[in-house]
């Protein structure tokens, strides 16, 4: 008897999992793929849509979904086991892994507290000012050094504040979410600001050069795009405050505890100086050497140095790093690569273009909306650099002012607000385990609308002036 109850209960708990499986079976066996899409690409699309259902409803732990994405590629015969595995690991995954470990190392040295205190001295104790401060600092830093770096650096700081606000972060879920999202979204909106804000900007510049559409200097890019960053910052703060409604209007007691703790730790000691020095090294490496070696390799080098100098114990890294998130990120990248290789990504692009072409007559508007919509949607599925790499050539081929279209595409590729794996910044805050994947949707759609509107405003008002 009890077995039936167990089974029924299990089915109730996992109904979304069952739904996803049923959906997948129907799609694979019943629905015939469109004629212009090869079966492997169709299967890749099935896997990704199943994974999206699972990620958003979360009937299973995320690492299980990661494994699901990996082995389904093999089971459906999209690629061999070894190829799937090797598409799983690349510099981006090394980077996520390395920066999550670096964050653990920094926390274990107590540097996050000092940094948090520094930021608070700038912003004051009011919650809204702190959130605004986090968003602004993340955005401005990210626009120059890339969102990945900033999210990795700021996450421990945000977590520290949360811990001080309440012993159990779940009790102040609103505050927690607002703080962490201010980091992730701040870094994301900032990343469009300059060419060095993200790898995808550089990819776009390469395309311009390759397609012979003229070139853009660093300063010109800033002139065109930076106003958008500045407009978005205050709105993002408003959206976060509105969506997550922090429980406390000021953080006096948390700040007091933080001040006491920092004072208690005393002056910065030898080990901490060493930790700071190493982090600065890693940071400089990210800024100057990542072209040659890749962000991930430098992050791993940093972790190695922390371990070699005995500033952090491996057991601590092993225990506190969120390995499940790394698996998930790797799996998402791997399926993204398959999307690209099987031609599924190109197919989506074509479908959107043809369908929009029926609705919209004006070629200029068509171009703009295609590039933005296409990029915006795809960047939530693929990584943003991959999106630009795939969509870029298609969009630039449509005709019109290629520089402006290029800007629009690069900007829209930063609209990865909707899922935990859409952008590395989102993955990093998700790894804290304190925000739910539904939160990404809740705040994400508003951010999406905001970004669309401000991109529209920018392109209609600002760019014509220039």
């Amino acid at each position, binding site marked *: 008897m009890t077995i039936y109850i167990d089974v029924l209960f299990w089915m109730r708990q996992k109904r979304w999992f069952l739904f996803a499986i049923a959906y997948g079976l129907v799609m694979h066996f019943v629905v015939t793929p469109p004629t212009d899409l090869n079966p492997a690409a169709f299967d890749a699309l099935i896997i990704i849509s199943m994974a999206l259902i699972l990620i958003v409803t979360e009937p299973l732990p995320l690492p299980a979904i990661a494994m699901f994405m990996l082995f389904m590629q093999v089971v459906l015969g999209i690629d061999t086991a070894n190829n799937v595995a090797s598409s799983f690991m690349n510099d981006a995954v090394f980077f996520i892994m390395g920066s999550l470990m670096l964050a653990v190392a920094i926390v274990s040295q107590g540097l996050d507290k000092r940094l948090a205190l520094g930021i608070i001295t700038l912003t004051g104790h009011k919650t809204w000012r702190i959130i605004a401060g986090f968003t602004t600092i993340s955005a401005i830093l990210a626009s120059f050094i890339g969102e990945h770096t900033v999210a990795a650096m700021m996450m421990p700081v945000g977590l520290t504040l949360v811990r001080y606000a309440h012993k159990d972060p779940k009790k102040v879920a609103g505050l927690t979410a607002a703080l962490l999202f201010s980091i992730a979204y701040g870094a994301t909106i900032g990343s469009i600001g300059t060419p060095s804000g993200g790898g995808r900007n550089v990819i776009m510049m390469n395309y311009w050069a390759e397609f012979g559409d003229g070139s853009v200097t660093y300063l010109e890019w800033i002139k065109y795009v930076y106003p958008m960053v500045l407009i978005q910052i205050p709105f993002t703060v408003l959206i976060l405050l509105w969506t997550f409604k922090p429980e406390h209007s000021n953080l006096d007691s948390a700040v007091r505890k933080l001040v006491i703790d920092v004072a208690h730790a005393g002056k910065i000691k030898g080990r901490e100086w060493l930790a700071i020095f190493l982090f600065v090294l890693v940071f400089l490496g990210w800024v100057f050497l990542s072209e040659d070696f890749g962000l991930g390799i430098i992050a791993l080098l940093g972790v190695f140095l922390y371990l070699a100098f005995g500033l952090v*114990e*491996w*057991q*601590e890294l092993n*225990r506190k790093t969120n390995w499940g998130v790394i698996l998930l990120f790797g799996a998402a990248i791997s399926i993204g690569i398959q999307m690209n290789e099987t031609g599924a990504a190109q197919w989506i692009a074509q479908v959107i273009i043809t369908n929009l072409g029926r609705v919209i007559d004006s070629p200029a508007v068509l171009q703009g909306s295609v590039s933005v919509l296409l990029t915006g949607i795809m960047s939530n599925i693929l990584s943003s650099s991959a999106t630009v790499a795939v969509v870029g050539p298609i969009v630039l081929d449509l005709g019109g002012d290629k520089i402006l279209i290029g800007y629009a595409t690069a900007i829209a590729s930063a609209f990865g607000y909707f899922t935990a794996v859409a952008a590395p910044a989102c993955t990093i805050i998700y790894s804290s385990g304190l925000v739910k994947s539904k939160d990404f949707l809740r705040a994400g759609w508003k951010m999406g609308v905001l970004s669309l509107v401000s991109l529209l405003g920018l392109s209609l008002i600002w760019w014509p002036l220039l």
Partner: protein
Amino acid sequence: MTKKKPLFDPKSLKFLTAVSSVEYSKPTLKMGALIASVFDASHGVVYVGERASEFHGSSVNLTRTNLDNWNIIHPGLEVLEWALQELKKLSPENNELAKIQFNPDHVYEEDGRVRVMLPEEKGCRIELVLREGELVDQLRKEIQLENYDLAIIGGSQNKRHLAHSLIQYLPSSIFILQKFNPRKKYKLLLLVDDSIATNKSVEWGALIAEKLGWPVRTLTVSKTKRFGAGYQGAADKAKAYFDSRGIEVEQFFLTGDPVRTFVDFAGDNHFVIMGASTLNPVKQLLFGSKPIKTLEQSDVPILIVR
């Protein structure tokens, strides 16, 4: 410079005894308990076991977890359980201690350090800790983590090399119990010179002598025939301190190579207390220091005060 206040507040001292096995660690543990009660210090007992190769770390962890399910506890925890029983036997009058039960399930584990949770009632300030890894490294970490003032360590077979590293690198005072026999009558031998560490070692010596009733000797060694004002003054100050606490002292002044003279004088029936070396650590590593050389050449328990 005369200080009114003692250099330390005995109530707040923390001592750490390193145990290795049930067979060999009994005298060490006994002395540790004794000296901790003399100073009224809180007493930590640490067992440093070997760490399994990291290659198979997962498998070893898995096995350990499964052994827990079968109620078979870690060998190190068995030693700690024994240590707790011994401590109870050593101070039967301590009722609070007698009430404490050892519960192998009740441990706090973090990053290779396992702490046995004991109820923290007054009168019982005991910590039981299990660590795995290289001995010097682990002792150093434990001392740094908990700010121990004194580490009590048994003399071991390959003592020369080990003792050298211990004295060189442990950041606390160190008590090495080589050839220690709890039944033997020891005399306290204080090495007095003009270094700063001497003040503290005199205070420690006085406390030990007071509580244990051991006779006290001070020894000052000069390389030349003349004893400078520094040495003489230090010896006088030490004597004055003992006098003020009503402890009788025999003073000795000898000439010769310091280490050789210490070792010869100490023989095997003294219990040596000396200040830590103030030499630059690099020089200590290359040329050794008085405490290191004394320890290497002699066969008596040595307390090095830092």
